[in-house]
């Protein structure tokens, strides 16, 4: 009597309100996830569709490698903008990466717990500052500084330049890269450090031969994620980089990165039909590059989790 009565009881309860709520949670969760994933795909397809008319007019090599940007004459060579984006991003990374590695190693391996907590808190605040504010600081401080520097080195510059863009961008990605790097370094298990220290290694030897070796994939991922973020950053760079459609040849030359091109011009010259398509194609490049870098980084980040477990 008891067992069968019990079973009856359970089945009738599960087919009640709990069961419906459970199903609802499952279905709505799935739906949201599908929508989010579909959104990425939709944006990509949308960009592709809007950019497509351009390729009826110009060849892919003209599009990527021609320097003539004359929308009025239907010439849409993106080369200056691609070079602008790549060089301002690379410059930012060259400045930021050594700083970030040093800071992350100090915070993770040397600093006391309290100092680390305070520093991470400040870094999180820095990372959350809206990019316009970085841009303003760039205009007020960095641009005059670069102008001064340029004068010293005998080149005529307004200060609105590749160098100013690189500096502002570096300052912006530094908290982001430090934050991930510290996280990665803390993933290295403490007993491993203990092993090296117990053999009489100094802290620095432990960092150099053991911790960095164990964390190198993750740190690379931090740098790549930083690169992806810098690559797509728009506002702050746009404000200080000068925005002249030419291939920059010196640090003091103005540059014109892809995001700035889109932000400055979209919706303005709608009278030229292909302009729209050209800007969409620029957006497509941005999306592909940033997406590829992010995916690579997450793939390598996952890898470090595996090696730490083994």
């Amino acid at each position: 009597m008891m067992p069968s009565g019990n079973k009856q009881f359970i089945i009738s309860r599960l087919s009640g309100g709990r069961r419906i709520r459970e199903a609802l949670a499952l279905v709505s969760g799935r739906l949201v996830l599908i929508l989010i994933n579909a959104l990425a795909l939709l944006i990509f397809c949308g960009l592709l569709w809007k950019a497509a008319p351009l390729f009826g007019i110009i060849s892919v090599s003209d599009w990527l490698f021609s320097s003539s940007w004359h929308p009025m004459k239907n010439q849409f060579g993106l080369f200056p903008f691609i070079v602008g984006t790549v060089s301002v991003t690379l410059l930012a990374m060259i400045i930021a990466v050594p700083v970030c590695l040093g800071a992350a190693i100090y915070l993770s391996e040397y600093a006391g717990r309290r100092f680390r907590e305070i520093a991470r808190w400040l870094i999180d605040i820095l990372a959350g500052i809206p990019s316009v504010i970085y841009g303003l600081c760039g205009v007020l401080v960095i641009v005059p500084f670069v102008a001064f520097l340029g004068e010293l080195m005998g080149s005529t510059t307004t200060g609105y330049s590749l160098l100013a863009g690189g500096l502002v961008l570096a300052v912006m990605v530094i908290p982001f890269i430090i934050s991930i790097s510290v996280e990665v370094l803390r993933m290295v298990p403490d007993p491993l450090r203990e092993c090296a220290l117990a053999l009489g290694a100094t802290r620095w030897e432990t960092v150099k031969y053991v911790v960095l070796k164990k964390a190198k994939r993750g740190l690379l991922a931090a740098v790549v994620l930083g690169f992806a973020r810098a690559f797509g950053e728009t506002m702050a760079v746009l404000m200080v980089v000068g925005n002249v459609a030419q291939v920059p040849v010196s640090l003091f030359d103005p540059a014109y990165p892809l995001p700035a091109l889109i932000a400055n011009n979209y919706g303005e010259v709608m009278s030229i039909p292909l302009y729209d398509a050209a800007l969409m194609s620029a957006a497509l490049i941005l999306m592909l590059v940033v997406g590829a870098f992010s995916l690579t980084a997450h793939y390598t980040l996952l890898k470090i989790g595996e090696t730490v477990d083994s």
Partner: protein
Amino acid sequence: MAHIQIQQLRVSYGSLPVLNDINLEIPDRQIVAIIGPSGCGKTTLLKSMNRLLDLNEDVSVTGSILLDGVNIYDPAMDVTCLRKRVGFLPQRPYPLPMSIFENVAFGPRIHGLSVLSAGGGGKQAEKSLVEHYLRLAGLWDEVKDRLDEPAAKLSIGQQQRLALARVLSIEPEVILADEPTSALDPVSAKLVETQFKLLKENYTIILVTHILRQARRLADYIVFLYMGDLIEHKPAAVFFSAPDDEKTKAYISGEIS
């Protein structure tokens, strides 16, 4: 041979006392087992002897531990030198992220050991050094053909013997071992125990274990801790046959664990 004397050692983590007034003289060239219920301060006592405790930020240590008469908690003490003389074998092996060969060569390299710096044939000297310590740890025959593989590829039993070779490679005088067989299968555990018996000819080995049978098998001298107090310490034969304290009797008979 380094001689260890512990005097009025007190250790606490923050406001939580872990060891209370420990006074102990470690006999040389023996296997000394520190036993006691979990949480009684065994590992803390062990790690206090080469200052691995320093890695814990909240820890405070008073009293002294004399190594050949010199207090290792003296601020002037060079911790890397201390750790070279008092080696540590951890509970789990954690191979360093490098090859089997480099794991053993790591210690000699950072300390610039005499064999390497003096002899002109550096590479050859290093090779024979690595072979020597791998043999000493009873691992050589299993790894001699794959020295350049990552150490992480070894089985955990092999990794633990690699860790032993790694400790031996810095030519310590004392070896501290923190439950060195607890993560191992019975066969590997037996191999490690056998190595210990061979090694006590030349080293003082201090071993933390929670396995009473292991202490019986291996130890020459027993140190029994209970709730941070040193209850009893004496030669193993006497300890097991004629314990003085009621807590010891209860622990040996399995009433407390």
